[in-house]
């Protein structure tokens, strides 16, 4: 790594983050730093706050106390700051959230034109480039409803990556897919990781975590309970809760 990269601020820096829904506290004093180029996998039982945590990073969820910095920029309630951060952060959702009234190509090209200010031709060319990377260029003129779940999710990844974000958030990207389609989406994510993209992935795909992650985080009841490199995390989990969870998802 070069010196410049060493001194650059981390991709995500979260300190003392607390969040409540009414009286229910969903995030307890979360501290987390994601380095540039790091591949982070977040797992945990449902309701543990893992989705909420990554959704606070691009301000899809608010929080009551603590601090979030994305690429060194402190997340405030200022509209321009929020938009700046959202332009640096790509996100992939469990339900794909493609725009059904636009074709696959338009799904990718419209944000490029509106947000990145590309011309129609530039936006189309760049969209086709990224659609090719997720191996779906031949579907460009179709509408999302005509595609399988796996294809839709790959388009969603292409749409986010085409914006050339500094980091990518994945919120359970394979949980809504039929089993035979999980692999095609994971393959695309692995390829993205191989290119050095900074990634924070909420997932139950432990195989993916083993293969790709630099670090695995286990959350329960709004707290980070345990974290470590995948090899140690899976072989010698420290806490009972982690062990119990791993037994459930690995069998």
């Amino acid at each position: 790594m070069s010196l410049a990269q060493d001194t650059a601020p981390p991709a995500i820096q979260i300190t003392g983050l607390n969040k409540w829904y009414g009286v229910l506290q969903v995030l307890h004093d979360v501290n987390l730093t994601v380095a540039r180029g790091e591949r982070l996998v977040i797992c945990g039982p449902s309701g543990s706050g893992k989705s909420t945590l990554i959704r606070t990073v691009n301000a899809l969820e608010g929080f009551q106390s603590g601090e979030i910095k994305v690429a060194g920029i402190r997340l405030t309630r200022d509209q321009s700051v929020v938009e700046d951060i959202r332009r640096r952060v790509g996100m992939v959702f469990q339900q794909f959230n493609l725009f059904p009234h636009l074709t696959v190509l338009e799904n990718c090209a419209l944000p490029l034109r509106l947000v990145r200010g590309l011309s129609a031709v530039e936006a189309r060319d760049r969209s086709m480039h990224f659609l090719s990377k997720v191996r779906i260029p031949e579907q460009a003129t179709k509408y999302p409803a005509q595609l399988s779940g796996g294809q839709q999710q790959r388009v969603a990844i292409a749409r986010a990556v085409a914006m050339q974000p500094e980091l990518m958030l994945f919120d359970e990207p394979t949980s809504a897919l039929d089993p035979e389609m999980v692999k095609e989406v994971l393959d695309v994510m692995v390829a993205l990781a191989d290119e050095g993209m900074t990634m924070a992935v909420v997932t139950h795909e432990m195989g993916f975590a083993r293969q790709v992650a630099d670090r695995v985080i286990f959350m329960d009841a709004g707290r980070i309970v345990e974290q470590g490199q995948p090899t140690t995390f899976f072989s010698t989990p420290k806490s009972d809760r982690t062990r119990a969870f791993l037994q459930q998802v690995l069998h």
Partner: protein
Amino acid sequence: MHYKDNIDYPPMLTRPAVFVPLLVAVFAALCWFQAGDGALGRLVLGLVPGAEGNTLNLATAACVTALVGFNIFVVMRLPLRQQVWLVWAELAALILLFFYSFDLSFAFIQRKIGFLITQGLLTTLYISAVSIFIATLLALMGAIAKLSSNGIAQGIAHFYTSLFRGLPLLMQIYMIYLGLPQLGYVVDAVPTGIAALSLCYGAYMTEIFRAGIESIPKGQWEAARALGMRPVSVMTRIILPQSMRVIIPPTGNQFISMLKDSSLVSVVGVWELMYLARTQGQTEFRHIEMMVTASLIYWLMSIVLELAQKRIETHFNKAATR
């Protein structure tokens, strides 16, 4: 039906178990209402001279039933689209026959229809078109205000829809035309009509737009925002185009309804279609001629709007129907 059942049932009307009882019911109803007493009876007299009373009733009922039965028999043998068009045309012909039976003076209509169109129709179209435009803007603003987190905007929007949906349109016209001058602001008749129609229909359409926007799942907002799109872009490029599928059909209803409610503006003396239809007929006691003419003009305009609505619907449905 939009989602057709894949089983090919025999059409209801080709089954004798449906067809025969239907004809019996038609026959019984015609007898019960003594169809022979009226115009139908006079027509049948040509076939059965000298019949009267019950005989004429029975003969009339039999003739009409036979006609209905034969018609169904023929129509059922056509392809679907032709069935629809033929039935539509037959019903339209019946309505026109009904008007024709009024013994109208076509010379009078011919003399007046030019003025009815150049003055009346144009005014009606002008008032309706401007009102449709303003009402759409009001509805969009009202819906966004209702869905905003701004208490003042919400308060205004809620009061607005409550008041202008709650008061009769006629009352709103009077309030603007006769009420505002009390405060020293005199509004002319045509602006009064446009203001009242825009405010009233804007209030109804606010609710249509609100429901349309709310029908779009949260994930669409989140995806657009997560891509860094600005709020105006999110609304105009992502949410509204999808809402249109829900918004267009009831809005088409509103436009057609407004077209005809614009006739209420005649109470403040605007020379629109309905006003002229009433006044032009008065001088020569030819009320019915003018009313029928105006009605047909209204109907024609509604048909144009219907067709426009259909085209727009198809446009916004194209992603969903493929």
